[in-house]
Each structure stands twice: as structure tokens, then as C-alpha cells.
């Protein structure tokens, strides 16, 4: 079960400006999905290490050397708003 208030809280965390209609729909659908997921609770997992990756790998280390892989100009090509070689964004705080 998930309540509409929880859906509103999660939407805020996820930075989604959901419509009223979507809030209602997701409350209903996510509740159903979570009920289904709750069957995991019947499994005894005492002492089981959580699996974070499918194939055991180790940290890959390398020398801390600056490499110029991409040009600024190329990286800015996809920017919705670019100015003076920077990403332009609306006002942040007062």
C-alpha cells in the first residue's frame, strides 16, 4: 500500500511535477505493484549478503592523469541553453 501523500512526497524527491490525475493513478498502480512485491517478505534472508553486482569485479584503479577526451564545444552542442561557453540555467535561489 502507498498513500497519495506518499506519492506526492516521492514525486517531489524524483523531481516530477505530476498532475492530480497521475497522482491518483500512480497511488492505485504502485499500491498494486508493491502488494505484489511484498511476497519477497515470505523469504527468509537472515544472514544473506545483498547482491550488488552480478559478476564479482574489483575496483579498477588508474593513474590520476587529466585527459582531454571531449571538446567543450562538442559537449555544449546538445545544451538546451548555452551562453559564453557555459550551460545557462534559470535563477538558483534568491
Amino acid at each position: 500500500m502507498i498513500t497519495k501523500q506518499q506519492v506526492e512526497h516521492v514525486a517531489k524527491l524524483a523531481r516530477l511535477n505530476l498532475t492530480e490525475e497521475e497522482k491518483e493513478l500512480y497511488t492505485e498502480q504502485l499500491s498494486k505493484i508493491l502488494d505484489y512485491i511484498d511476497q519477497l517478505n515470505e523469504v527468509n534472508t537472515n544472514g544473506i549478503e545483498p547482491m550488488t553486482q552480478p559478476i564479482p569485479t574489483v575496483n579498477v584503479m588508474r593513474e590520476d592523469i587529466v585527459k582531454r577526451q571531449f571538446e567543450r564545444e562538442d559537449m555544449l552542442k546538445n545544451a538546451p541553453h548555452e551562453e559564453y561557453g557555459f550551460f545557462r540555467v534559470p535563477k538558483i535561489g534568491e
Partner: protein
Amino acid sequence: MTNNIVEKSAREINKMFLNKEISAKEIVEAFYKKIKLAEPSISALNSLTEDLAFKQAEVLDKSISKGEKLSPIAGVPVIVKDVMCVKGYPATCSSKILESFIAPYESTATGKLWEAGAICLAKSNMDEFAMGSSTENSAFKKTKNPWNLNTVPGGSSGGSAASVAALEAPISLGTDTGGSVRQPAGFCGVVGLKPTYGRVSRFGLIAFASSLDQVGPFARNVYDTALVLQYISGYDPKDSTSLDIEVPDYTGKLNSDTIKGKKIGLVKELMGDGIDAEVRKSIEKSVQIFKDLGAEIVEVSLPNVKYAVPIYYIVATAEASSNLARYDGVKYGYRTGGAKEILPMYMSTRQEGFGQEVKRRIMLGTYALSSGYYDAYYKKAQQVRKLVTQDFLNSFEKVDLLISPTCPTTAFEFGAKVEDPLSMYLSDIATIPASLAGLPAISLPCGFDSKKLPIGLQIIAPALGEELLLDASYAFEGVCKFENKVPVLV
């Protein structure tokens, strides 16, 4: 001679090209002609990469005229799922939020193909951000199943699967997170392989669920599948989860005799009530084929696979909610108009840019990772994921391979599952387990149901067991002869 080139396998096309029976330019022209004929029926493609294809063809034709030695994949046209970056071309993920995105770099897997002389024809349609099982979640178009235009091609790599079934290319690339290569391969009657996690670099593949995502090939026969795997596999310093383990000679060593004396486990839990009776019958026939080929078949139980779908919808959505946080309207992609401050800009950009299923999964994943729920959902799912993996390890002490249906049903009609997300999720019930365990698995066409829709057989191997997986598939293909069956487009 060249008018039926589109019906040829990758292997035959390469041979004809190397023998100078056809030029690379003629190959490209023939496939674009076919694409223009087939696309109005199936809508498998988001964009064509014509400039690139003709440029690559020109280089190939020059090389061959100079007598240079070319690879076994040279001259073979490829279609690439629109989740992978091909430098200078769109990579939309079939999402409004990336509709105008042009890839500034090349994915490792595609780069390796072009370097070997394969030719990039087009980018294929998919479920938005690879989230879905029918390709209906594309923001752009509905891809049709070439076997029956009223049914879905499966997903999320529906465009890649449908394009190969409809002869728009002999091979294509897809990505598989919970079955997104195998399930559409099953629905479209083609071969689809998900390699071992880490076998193929994920660099340049736009991330959905990083502990599950893997690039995999589609083809109409096993050799062509092995051929693509040969070129896309290998360690990549740009993906720290790629495995630094030598790539075997997959094509050279293909052998249909290896299967003799091998033990194959039929997964009991994936042959039960949830599986359509016609599908089950077809799998039983496949079991008989393997017996006739000299394999021993035993029934195997994987008691925790029934939890695979609930595990997946926590793990994959949690990872997705994190991976998709980058779409904020700042660096690339869609930005809402008119927002005067940054927070409302983020909120509206994401609200307007993402489709329903993507938002639903971001919500679910964010919830599972949120304060107070992390242990109950995310940690719990990861623990049960370990138990599913343990089931596989236990079974592979007794058998060499596992088999099951790829999908519980054949292709369903448009709209059949859109209103009920849970029923859509359950169509991946047979493919998700191997994804959770990181294991290689393949879907092979193994027959048709009474509606004349293809049925898929799934074979699962231990980690890095691609050679045996391909050998078994090759032997099965030799009996089943599925490569001769192609849909007739109206």
C-alpha cells in the same frame, strides 16, 4: 544476383562482398530499398544513418579494390537500437526528453563493429529508455510484429527484432536488462542473445539499470549471432564492469556435436500454469530434439525464480531512478519553456519529457530507495537476488545448460496490457532470472502457435558459457531449420 541480397545471412553477404560479387554501395542501396518498402508496414526504425552508411561503404569499396584483407563481418549492414550512441547521430531512447540529442561520442560496441567493416544502416525504435515489453512505450511510434501487424514485436528492443525479422538488415543490436533482447526475439521469430554481464562494454549505452544492462545481437541464424558477439565482446577500460577475460573464437569453433552427452535441465518452475499450453507443447518438442541430438534431459527446480519479477521491479527501478536523475534540462535534451527558477524548471522538464511508464518506474525506484523503505525493499530484493543466483549455481553443478520458454505466451495484441503494468511485467517472467544472475542466455525460434505466431525457446548457460550456449543453439538450428522461415509482409 543482387535483388535477393536482403534475404541473405550476414555470412553470405560478407562472402559475396569479399568475392566482389557485390559492392558495399550496392549492399547499402539494396537494404535501404527494402527498408523503404517495409517501414510503412512495421515502423521499426526511428532514423536512418544514410550519410554514415554510404561513407562506410565507400571506404570498404576502396579497401577491397586495393586488395586489403577484410574481416568476416565487412560489408554486413547493422541496425542499432536507439539507446546506443553512434557519433554524430541521434540517440533518442525513443523519449521526448532526448528527441533532439545527438551522440557526441561512439559506444564501444558499435565502434568495434564499424572498425571491423560492418555498416550502420539505422537506429531502431524501442520502449522509452528500454522500459517495457512491447515497444508501445515509445514516444514516437508503434512498431508492428512482422508476423502479424496487429500484434506487438515485444520489447524493449522491438525495433531491432522486427527489423531483422522483416529483412531490413541481417543483424541488429539490442540491449537486454530483464529480457529486452530475448523476449522480442521470441515474439519476432529471430535469434536473440544476451551475453554474460560484463562480456560486452556498456560504454555509450544510455543507462537504464546498470547492474543488469547488457548489449546483445539479433540475427536470423546462430552463426550470424556468434559473429556479432565475436566483434562486440571484450574488455574496455571505459567500462570498469567489463570483464578482462580473453574472447574465445565463437564463430570458428561453432560445433553441433558438442551437445552430445551434455546434460540439459528443463526448468520446472517455468513450465507451469502461467505458461500458455501451446508454448509448453512446443518446448516439449524442443526437448525431444535435444534428446535426439544426444543430450540428456533432466527436470531442474529453481525454487526462488518465482521471486524474480518482484526482485527485478525493485532493483531495476531503483537503479533507473538514479540513472535517470541526469535528465534535468541543463546539459542536454528537452527543457521546459518559461520556468523562472531552477527547481520548477527541473520538475516541469521531467514531467513533460518522460512518458507514463518511465515516470511510474522512477516513482517506484525512488520510493524503494527513500528513507525508511530502503531495507524493506532495496536491500531485501538484493538478498533474494543472491538466492536466485545461488539456485542457478546449484543447478549448474548438476547440468550444463538450462532450457525454458522465452516468454509465457506468443505476441499479444496492441493495447492488451497497457492499462495493467503488472500484467506487462509478468511477460518477462522467464527472462528476468538469468538477468538477475548475470548469465548468458539465448532465445531461438522453435515453432509457431495456431495463430501462426513464433514461439521462442530460451537456453541459459553458466557465466561465460557462451561457447556451449552457441554450440547447443547451432545443433538445434540444424534440426529446426528456422532460418528459412521469414514473414511475408503485406
